[in-house]
């Protein structure tokens, strides 16, 4: 049983074996370049940066960044979320949401902290504070 479980855990990504960190800074990262696109559901233990296009549902433990020029249509849940491009959908930032000056956000947000820079555009509802949803994973 134990071995089976261990095999199942290590099989998909070799770097995820116990005690081995895939990056020197100790955290996983997904980086989608300007020409890249992602469509689907992602549960991820690490940080995600999108500079191309992304669509779907992303629940990540780390930080999520939508670069300038990026187009994201998704449900996003992350720790710190930074938006500099176009984003549409529900968003939850367990720590902080930052809207950069080139950001365009359409959708409802649930955040602990919120910072909006001059020039950013935002339409939606803001809910600040509690996080009942994120506790059960």
């Amino acid at each position, binding site marked *: 049983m134990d071995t089976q479980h261990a095999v199942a855990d290590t099989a998909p990504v070799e770097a995820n074996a116990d005690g081995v960190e895939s990056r020197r800074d100790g955290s996983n990262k997904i980086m989608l370049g300007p020409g890249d696109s992602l469509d689907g559901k992602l549960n991820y233990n690490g940080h995600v940066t999108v500079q191309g296009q992304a669509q779907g549902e992303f629940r990540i433990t780390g930080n999520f960044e939508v670069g300038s020029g990026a187009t994201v249509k998704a449900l996003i849940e992350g720790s710190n979320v930074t938006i500099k491009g176009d984003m549409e959908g529900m968003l939850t930032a367990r720590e902080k949401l930052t809207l950069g000056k080139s950001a365009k956000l359409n959708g409802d947000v649930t955040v602990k902290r*919120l910072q909006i820079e001059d*020039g950013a555009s935002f339409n939606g509802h*803001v809910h600040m504070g509690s996080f009942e949803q994120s506790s059960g994973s």
Partner: protein
Amino acid sequence: MTENETSVVMLGPRDRLIGELYIEGNLRVSGTLEGQIEATGDVDVTEAAMVKATVAGREVNVSGQVNGAVTASKKLVIGRSGSIVGDVRVPRLIMQDGASLSGNVSMGPKVAAEFAQAAAAEAAAPVEVAAAVQSATDGETAQEKQKPKKR
């Protein structure tokens, strides 16, 4: 020419206003305010202020507590100690880290065009001004027409 005479209303930390206030000029609140306020100029809500009112102004700065809808025809700045509970309608919004906001936010060029239209309607009396504003809004209404959803 519109700003030859601007009055400034200041409410100190121990002052209180309950009711409806309209001023052609600027407002600075440090005390308690309840009801409805509208200023043609800038509205400043300082750290000590407790505002339970709908607030309308050109440029609105919030460093205190506001409970009510806020509209700014130019921009809204929520300082790090500021807190707004209510819906916000502004063309530009700046929110500093630490500030708190709960409510609906509507902003962007569409909202800006609406404010420009309202200003044009109000300035209908002096003909030259109205014409100037009208020509300025023409560009924005053209922009607005591109969007299918138009209120």
